[in-house]
């Protein structure tokens, strides 16, 4: 779009891949060159991500006024079909690129930026740079950096995909190096187990989702064949380029089908089950496994603990968001009817996530497990935001994705820095580290305050709308099981979730007190000094955005709202 003529999103995806390939050709002994290439590519990617983010943010205002105009009835009549949500979505796409990949199957390489993925792109860039910096002295630098950059590319690819096939392609591309990184560089005692557990959970989840998606694509094709009028209307919106008989993985096209009821057809000859209500749980939970949804969260703490620091950072910081993001993008956005039926019970799972994760984190003796379970807890809030099915709650979920991403990466960074020096993660045997590593202590406390929702930090900015969305949803959402109808229970759930956050405060302070305060044992840790400048960069890179977003949320919140609006329009909510 404006100001950019180069295919910037593709550059963001392919720079790490190219860098990874180059690195593989360099001699292992030439570590400085390897690091140099890795950090250069990560910085380029971060700079481009920031550029597209702020460029997009500049458009948001213009965009929202355009959307306001769109809602006036005269223009609605022009559109003809009820394609408002897909139009909103289409209007919100920037830096769009598409190239046909496999014509016969309708597969395209199709990427674009909108209000939902732009913050994720920025976050990925931040964590990529931080991850390279923190892995500076790792053994077998060459392989590590190559796999790490490949992982970064995969993550980027998922976030910016508009074509579902592209999305799956990158999704699997991200999981593959992840496995190798954990199994190869992780904590020796558990890495094989953890890497296996993590990979299998995620693979099974994604396969379940993939099956659903393929069914979806065929159903949409069928729908367009039977409803040429809608197909024509879609063409007039400029969102469908293919022939009606052609398969399409294009989300815009699938969204238009969803808006017009393509997925409300009955399946299995049942009166109750529709395509949408049948497939939604598979697609949503299939992806949400990666977001650590209860009871499929168990891979995550084990995986995070066993992974090397950089991988923990990118995994908890970005990959878990990938799951949530895909669950929203594919599950809720394409099967809104299913969402309306199923999210009212899925919200209970999210509550369990919040409370369960917090209580477990409270009892851990291992520093890294505390953070691992805290991620389980906080990701529950993201899915809870989705379950509100209103703009406020979903905006909060989007903010929480970014906030938690930066925060948890910061946490893992802090843990890594302490572990590198103390060689233990056993909380009771640490203590007084504030005297030796004051910056780490400050960063940990900033992260901790963010996680417990302290105003002035991004966690609060995210929690507030989620809670508000929960109150607002309480009156509108009911859960029907047979003849039994449960109403107004969101308000009760939000109260329990809020109390879960108190537990967060308890474990964060406990860890801070035991690791950073109290006595420092000079005899046990005689040679521990302050952190290096490159480590300080990591802390600033991940910590400062938490504060900026907390003080000035307008830098992100309206953007996410523009991304959320089309989804809410589909859900028929407010």
């Amino acid at each position, binding site marked *: 779009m404006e100001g950019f003529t180069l295919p910037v999103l593709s550059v963001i995806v392919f720079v790490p891949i190219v860098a990874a390939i180059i690195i593989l050709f360099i001699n292992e002994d030439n570590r400085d060159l390897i690091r140099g290439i890795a950090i250069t590519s990560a910085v380029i990617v971060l700079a481009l991500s920031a550029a597209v983010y702020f460029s997009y943010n500049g458009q948001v205002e213009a965009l929202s006024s355009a959307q306001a105009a769109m809602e006036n009835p005269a223009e609605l009549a022009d559109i003809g079909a009820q394609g408002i949500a897909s139009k909103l979505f289409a209007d919100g796409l920037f830096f769009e690129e598409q190239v046909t990949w496999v014509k016969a199957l309708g597969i395209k390489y199709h990427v674009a930026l909108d209000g939902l993925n732009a913050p994720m792109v920025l976050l990925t860039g931040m964590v990529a740079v931080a991850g390279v910096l923190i892995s500076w002295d790792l053994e077998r630098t060459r392989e590590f950096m190559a796999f790490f950059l490949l992982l970064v590319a995969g993550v980027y690819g998922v976030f910016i995909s508009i074509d579902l096939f592209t999305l799956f392609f990158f999704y699997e591309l991200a999981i593959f190096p992840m496995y190798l990184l954990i199994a190869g560089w992780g904590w020796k005692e558990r890495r094989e187990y953890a890497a296996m557990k993590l990979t299998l959970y995620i693979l099974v989840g994604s396969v379940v989702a993939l099956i659903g998606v*393929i069914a979806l694509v065929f159903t949409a094709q069928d729908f367009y064949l039977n409803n040429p009028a809608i197909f024509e209307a879609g063409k007039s919106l400029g969102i469908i380029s293919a022939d009606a008989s052609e398969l399409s993985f294009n989300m815009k096209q699938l969204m238009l089908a969803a808006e017009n009821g393509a997925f409300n*057809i009955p399946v299995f000859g049942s009166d109750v089950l529709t395509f949408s209500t049948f497939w939604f749980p598979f697609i949503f939970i299939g992806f949400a496994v990666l977001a650590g949804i209860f009871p499929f969260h168990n891979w995550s703490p084990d995986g995070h603990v066993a992974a090397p620091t950089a991988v923990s950072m990118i995994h908890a910081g970005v990959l878990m968001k990938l799951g949530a993001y895909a669950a929203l993008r594919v599950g809720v956005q394409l099967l809104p009817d299913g969402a309306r039926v199923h999210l009212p019970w899925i919200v209970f799972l999210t509550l369990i996530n919040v409370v*369960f994760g917090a209580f477990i984190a409270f009892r851990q003796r291992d520093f890294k497990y505390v953070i691992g379970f805290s991620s389980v807890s906080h990701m529950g809030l993201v899915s809870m935001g989705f379950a509100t099915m209103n703009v406020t709650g979903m905006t909060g979920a989007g903010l929480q994705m970014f906030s938690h991403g930066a925060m948890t990466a910061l946490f893992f960074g802090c843990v890594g820095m302490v572990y590198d020096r103390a060689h233990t993660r056993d909380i009771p045997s640490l203590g007084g580290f*504030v005297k030796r590593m004051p910056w780490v202590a400050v960063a940990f406390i900033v992260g901790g305050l963010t996680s417990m929702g302290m105003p002035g930090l991004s966690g609060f900015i995210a929690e507030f709308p989620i809670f508000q969305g929960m109150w607002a949803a309480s009156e509108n959402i009911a859960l029907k099981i047979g003849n039994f109808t449960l109403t107004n229970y969101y308000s009760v759930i939000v109260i329990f979730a809020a109390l879960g956050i108190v537990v967060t405060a308890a474990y964060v302070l406990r860890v801070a007190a035991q690791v950073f*305060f109290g006595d420092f044992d000079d005899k046990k840790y005689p040679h521990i000094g302050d952190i290096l400048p490159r480590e300080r960069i990591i802390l600033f890179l991940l910590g400062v955005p938490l504060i900026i977003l907390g003080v000035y949320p307008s830098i992100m919140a309206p953007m996410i709202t523009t991304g959320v609006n089309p989804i809410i329009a589909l859900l028929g909510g407010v």
Partner: protein
Amino acid sequence: MEVNFSDPNFLPWLIPVGPLLAFFIITLATNRARLVPATSHEYGGHHPDYEGMLVPVATVPSRILSVTVGLAGVIMALFFSYTVAFSAFGEHGFGAEVVYASNIAWMATGDTAFRLGVFVDPLTVIMLIMVPLAVLMIFIYSIGYMAHDPRQSRFFALISLFAGAMLTLVVADNLLLLFVGWEVMGLCSYMLIGFWFEKKSAYKAAIKAFITTRVADVVMLLGIVYLYYATGTLNFRDILYNPELLEQLAATPALIFGSWGISAASIIGIFLIVGTIGKSAQFPLHVWLPDAMEGPTPVSAMIHAAAMVSAGIYAIIRIYPLLEAGGNPHYGILSQPMVLMAVVGSFTALFAATIAVAQNDVKRVLAYSTISQLGFMMAALGIGAYIAAAFHLITHAFFKALLFMASGSVIHGMEHGEHHVHEHAAHGHDDHHHDDHHGHFDPQDMMNMGGLRKTMPVTFITFLIGGFSLAGFPLITAGFWSKDEILADAFYGLTKGYGAHALVFIMLAVAAFLTAFYTMRQLGLTFWGEPRTEVAKHANLGRGLVSFTMTLPLIILAFFAITAGFVGVPPDFPILGPIFSPEHNAFHYFVIETLHPAFQAEAPAVNAIPVLTSFVVALGGLGLGWWMYWRKPLVAGEEDPLVGILGPVHTVLKNKYYIDEIYVAVFVKPSQAFSRFVIDFIDRGILDGILHTIARVATWIGDLFKVLNTWLIDGVGDGIPDGIFDFGGWVRRIQTGHVQEYLLVVLGAVLVIGIILALSTGILQAAG
């Protein structure tokens, strides 16, 4: 919008800026410290816990910078506050027609932007008079008190932030900004209570304070969120000056418990009150406050008087119309939140007063008296005595800041004395008292004191003034007038036959009696009689800057502890009324304009019974204390006469009704057990159990294939068996984990299977 800081509408923005700026300057400019052994003379010897450790010591330039910048920040805040306040005093119709307010758009949510801003109305003005003044006194006092602390810069940075947060809270024009100040204060209190973090007890107290208030804060946040959802705004003026909106809220059933007759206004009110119960340390969330004295004494003064706990009461005074909505206390109709306040407040007032009676720690007595006095304010609000609560908030802040700093001086003096005695002993002078001072000598234990009036006369006189004001010594102390006004309001309701008012009147009268008694007990044990230990004999503040900066604030605050009450003398009070309030009760007249006319109520006429009650309880309590502790002061080794009189009751009181122990048994242990259950049974047991079972079955199938392979197929041919063997081996390898090279195969296989399945489903769909 043109910003002009000579305009009082914009001036309030500058009030918190000074201290906040001071925080940043001190933090950024003084982060270098030298590490010296704790035995070094540079380290002043505040805490023997430091022994054998390296402590970072602030350098001299850092010290000078932090003190100067900190002080400058507060003086700046004081200057702007008083400019705004005096401008408000001169304004005609301030409150009803004129308020100072301005705001900016902060975050766009949906169609409307959330606006943050400042707002000054009469209630804000009286806080702006009290807070900066008390904070300034605390800062001056801290110069001396923290003079030798190795982390002096850190202290001034944090306490500046604390002051800045409190001032932000006071000038906030909406609940969200108020909550920001509220939480930042909670954070500062956490860091300051745990300031001496080498001490386990200090950081434990810090965590306790933070978590306890945090529970309440989260509930409060839910209330704020609900209010925002229900009204679409959090601006005080928009909500509280809008009776129709409040009525409508009171008529809407709440989202939860709505079917039990609780309105939206009530549930919001109750949530917000829970926030205050935590912050202002009301029963049952009071447990953090007594432990909070682990921090340096100026911090205690900050928490107990100028900020923190006052903020809790201020917040509910601020939102009072919302709490009243749906009832009218002047006709005896109380909304549910008000009933809650009346019950919690009056109970806490009495409950904490009984505990204070049996404490021997000089600061702990004061801590429980704070809880008790906050209960007075809470109860007053519960019966609609809005102005009396605000009045007591102000007078209490003055005399409680005074009392805490005076007790800090006492402790400082005792530590000084202990130092002296140690040196004395080191020089080989044999003294039979020495045995007392080795090991665990507690400089805060009043049983170790006695006779301090001789060596610390200024501290004694000011402590006496503060104590008498707390006890409500009739006519000449500020505490009398504010407490009397609460009792008068309660009695007025009692004459009408309102139950809540009667409860409040009786509970508070008894609590006031106990207050006077324990104050006199404290004064007697600390200052009267003869020194009970060698340390007490040598207790003094020394000379020079330390002594001066620790004495001056006491004298200034003592002045206010007496005179602050005279702004609120009822005009119809015999003799004194016409002198101090010739036209009207100045405080009442000014502050009542905070409320919308629909909520305003005139003060009841002076009635002899509550006035006499105030006289009797204050003088009676003081008299009893005098009779027990002054007439025949305790000598060394003698037991507190209360122990004999109260017997087992004393043990219960001394142990604070075992509330801490009960909480451990009821909340802490079960939640730990729950965590263990969740980890061991659900997470590792069921969930991982299922997973591992699946894995084991898969391995078993793999092995089975392998066996089948050898047993069944081996004889048939060579090509097929190899393939199956590989498959079996592959499945088995998943378990053992050597799978890197096979991962792509899995991926591919899974994709193929998926596509086949999906295609068939899709075709079925198409066919159907």
